[in-house]
């Protein structure tokens, strides 16, 4: 009897109506399943498997063990891109998310013009990252760029090629995304608005000052949103491509090299095995970030 009950518990109980609909249900799922298999399941398996092979895309892949990984970890461009990614992640987690959160708090108190600010802040996010990279190339241009023109008001002899000179290039690339944290702002603002207003009243009755309220009530309560923002902005660092490829292309030297640039170069050189090894590293870094941030912000716990 128990065994029977358990068997029933294992599968969702389907009504007569639903069973009659199975044909339709699976038909409706088919397109999504096909896309999932073609663009996710098969590619991920393929990337993992062929990362252990030598493969030019024309002949059959040839197993070569850890060769690609050894090549990768002895390549200075790869090591530099790991270092860059780490530094960019750090900057993103602290300053990018920090700035977005700050703006969220400002907007939460609805100063005059908060709706306009929120609307305008979104604009850099709705235009193509490629176009945005070009715009920044012009802003940082030495001859007619906005930045150097303004600096020359104070120092007429100032000359810097931001995207082409070490160590500026790294920070010039960083500036193309650093302050554009509207996603962080919107996500955190959403959480702030969800905090029950009784909490604010209770805190005020207990004599909490504004800063104490922010520090001990609001910030801890929107840690879920902040955690999400950290994940989103760190994964955006892994995927960063246009901002580098269209400005510095990884230079000067390897100053702004990234995994995405190495991966594309691998494909263009027909070193598919190597490119996929880089892909595996990207994938794993993504997973690690997700896991660590989730733990750090205790995102799976609820508060009210």
């Amino acid at each position, binding site marked *: 009897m128990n065994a029977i009950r358990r068997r029933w518990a294992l*599968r*969702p109980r*389907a009504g007569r109506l639903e069973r009659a*609909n199975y044909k*339709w249900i699976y038909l*409706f*799922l088919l*397109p*999504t399943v096909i*896309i999932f298999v073609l*663009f*996710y399941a098969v*590619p991920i398996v393929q*990337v993992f498997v062929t990362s252990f092979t030598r493969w030019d*895309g024309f002949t059959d892949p040839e197993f070569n063990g850890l060769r690609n990984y050894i090549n990768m970890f002895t390549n200075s461009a790869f090591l530099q891109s790991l270092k860059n990614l780490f530094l960019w992640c750090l900057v993103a987690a602290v300053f990018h998310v920090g700035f977005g959160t*700050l*703006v969220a708090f400002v907007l939460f108190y609805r*100063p005059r*013009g908060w709706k306009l600010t*929120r*609307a*305008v*802040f*979104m*604009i*850099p996010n*709705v*235009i*193509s*990252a*490629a*176009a945005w990279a*070009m715009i920044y190339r*012009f*802003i940082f241009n030495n*001859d*007619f760029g*906005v930045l150097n*023109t303004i600096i020359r008001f104070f120092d007429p002899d100032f000359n810097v090629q931001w995207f082409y000179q070490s160590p500026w290039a790294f920070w010039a690339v960083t500036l193309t995304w650093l*302050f*554009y944290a*509207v*996603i962080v702002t*919107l*996500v955190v*603002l*959403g959480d702030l608005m969800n905090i029950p207003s009784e909490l604010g009243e209770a805190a005020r009755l207990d004599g909490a000052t504004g800063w104490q309220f922010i520090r001990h009530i609001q910030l801890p309560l929107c840690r879920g*949103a902040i955690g999400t923002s950290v994940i*989103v902005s760190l*994964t955006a660092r*892994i995927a960063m*491509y246009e901002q580098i490829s*269209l400005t510095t292309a990884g230079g000067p030297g390897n100053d702004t090299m990234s*995994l995405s640039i190495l991966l594309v170069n691998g*494909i263009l050189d027909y070193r*598919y095995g190597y*490119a996929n090894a880089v*892909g595996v590293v990207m*994938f794993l870094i993504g*997973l690690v970030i997700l896991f660590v941030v989730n733990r750090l912000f205790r995102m799976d716990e609820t508060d009210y």
Partner: protein
Amino acid sequence: MKLKKGLTRTFMYAIEIFVIVISAFPILWVIMSAFKTNGEILTNPLALPTSITLDTFAYLFEAYNFPLYFLNSLLAAGVSTVVSLLFYSMGAYVIAKFKFPGRQLLYILFTITLLVPSHSKTQPIFSLVMQLGLYDSIWGVTFVYLSMGMAMSIFILKAGFMAVPKTLDDAAIVDGASFLRVFWRINLPLAKNALTTAGVLMFLNNWNEYYFASLLTVSDSQRTLPIALAFFTSEFSYNYTQLFSALTVVILPGILLYAVAQEKVQVSVATAGIKG
């Protein structure tokens, strides 16, 4: 106390102004520069244009394939958005409304794809498009765009369909409505909000996409606007007026779409917490 309040106020306005300047100024500067001559751009980058003419834009559209790039972008982003919206709403609909074996597993599989950096799958997707004979074709790009935003759309659409009361479905079934009819006539129209949210996000992403489009096309006739823009830099190199005009043409449609669907875009970004 009063002083402190004043300081906080000033600080808040300073932040607001900073945000508006860094977000709007670069774009205004690009549009403004598109109306200046090369000499004006070089001698005084911050000055206003002296005359407003649309000559450069007219030239761009005549001498280069701009209308074609525009159509390519519209085709790739538009077709992929409409088709994947249909596909994903079918999937999300049955996941939201029916019990069947594998339901939970499929939902997890579909949404977990969010965690896979799309760049890491570049080579297999590249090879897939090659095998299908769609390399260097705008259709290949469109095909790849179908897969983008899957997790996010399923997530948004599932919530949308779950909000449609089941009693409405039952009433329609009693009246003899078929499975298709219940989906098409009742659920789709009532999940309109979720559909626009997912649609706007997908369209914006695909309209702006650069990475796959740059890898999957080579010929001029297959370029989308962002790709064409990248090629322009090398082609015009020192004609800044044309470069700025090209940039203006590329960024304006996205901004206009945003201006029309502003609330939608903001709400969707806030609920999804994800973009790109």
